């Protein structure tokens, strides 16, 4: 139990996917304009991450022990088709849920955070439960980073920013400062 808690907190704060591993930067830099959208994107990403962890575990236990060199290709194909399948079922079963989360799903599947999670979970030899907790922590960390970033960006809308620095350069510098702040959490687990 301690171990699971440790995995969750460390992926949420210390090894935040966006701010420490640079995974999922594309949506982080481009979609984080509004608080509401960022939060929903974060939720949808968490959902896909959990499915990814499940797929990765199934593949690792039943298929890839026979053919380890197919790891990358099978991860991509299986994750993409599973997400596609779930997207279609959500569309059928709950149109309102689809409206709020579904439009993000195809966008997320090509996100490097998804593949990164599958590869990290494999490299660290996580089991099913550990993998799921890892995915939840990563998703929560992604949502947290997105929401913080969106909050800061909404504030900077009314500021008088020089024309040259507007856009990606400005977002990257904000992200740098945010990442520096998150490094403060590194002392949280100094004993382990």
């Amino acid at each position, binding site marked *: 139990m301690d171990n699971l808690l440790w995995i969750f907190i460390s992926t949420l704060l210390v090894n935040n996917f966006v*701010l*420490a*591993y*640079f*995974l*999922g*930067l*594309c949506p982080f*830099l481009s979609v984080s304009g509004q608080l509401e959208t960022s939060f929903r994107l974060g939720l949808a990403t968490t959902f896909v991450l959990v499915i990814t962890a499940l797929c990765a575990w199934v593949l690792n236990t039943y298929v890839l022990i026979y053919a380890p*060199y197919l*790891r*990358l*290709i099978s991860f*991509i*194909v299986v994750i*993409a088709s599973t997400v596609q399948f779930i997207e279609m079922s959500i569309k059928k079963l709950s149109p309102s849920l689809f409206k709020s989360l579904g439009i993000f799903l195809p966008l997320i599947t*090509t*996100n*490097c955070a*998804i*593949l*990164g999670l599958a*590869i*990290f979970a494999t*490299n660290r030899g996580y089991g099913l439960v550990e993998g799921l907790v890892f995915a939840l922590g990563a998703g929560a960390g992604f949502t947290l980073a997105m929401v913080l970033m969106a909050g800061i960006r909404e504030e900077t809308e009314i500021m008088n920013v020089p024309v*040259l*620095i507007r856009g*990606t*350069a*400005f*977002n*990257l*510098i904000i*992200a*740098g*400062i945010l*990442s*520096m702040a998150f*490094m403060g959490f590194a002392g949280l687990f100094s004993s382990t």
Partner: protein
Amino acid sequence: MATDVSAYEEMIKGLWRDNPVFVQVLGMCPMLAVTNSAINAVVMGLATFFVLVGSSFLVSSFKTFIPKQVRISLYIIIIATFVTVVDYSLLAILPAIHKELGAFIPLIVANCMILGRQEAFASKHNVKYAVMDAVGMSGGFLIAMLALGSVREILGVGALFGVDLFGSNFEPWVIMILPPGGFLTLGLLLLFFNWFTERRRQFLIKVADADRVLAVEKVDAQGVKDNG
């Protein structure tokens, strides 16, 4: 002859004018994650080079056989195959660096620059142009990686490619080789690039204006001469 010139242009445009990192802002994830030292940046750049050139070659060779509906999935599978090749080769040739780059070698698949080139260029042009374009784009990516990696290693460790630059009196900025340093350095490099592009634009406008003024004066002078 004319085709040679334009193939050359396809290559050159990726290096500076359409640089995938500074102008199109693609492929940020590997860009920031592995540039904590110049040698890692170069190895990653070369790996991306191999994957992009290889998959552009394959995609443009087979473009007539690929059905439109499943093209994206096929591109991704082709890219993933090349990445697997790179992954295993690096493990055999440079095990130390492979260990340091770790999960970021397989993540080359998720670099949107590579998929973007297949969709936007390789699937519509013949093999020669596709390869030239891939060489230029990945060359531009390599340059950007090298720039970022060098800055971060020089400031963060006081060395370049492992060679000590400043002697023992230099106090390293450890933050530069940690994640925040990546964000800050890339942000400042983009700022510099914007500034440079803007300056160049202003300069071109000025030149164009000067040319127009000259042309007008010439016409006036001509008119005066004619009337006189």
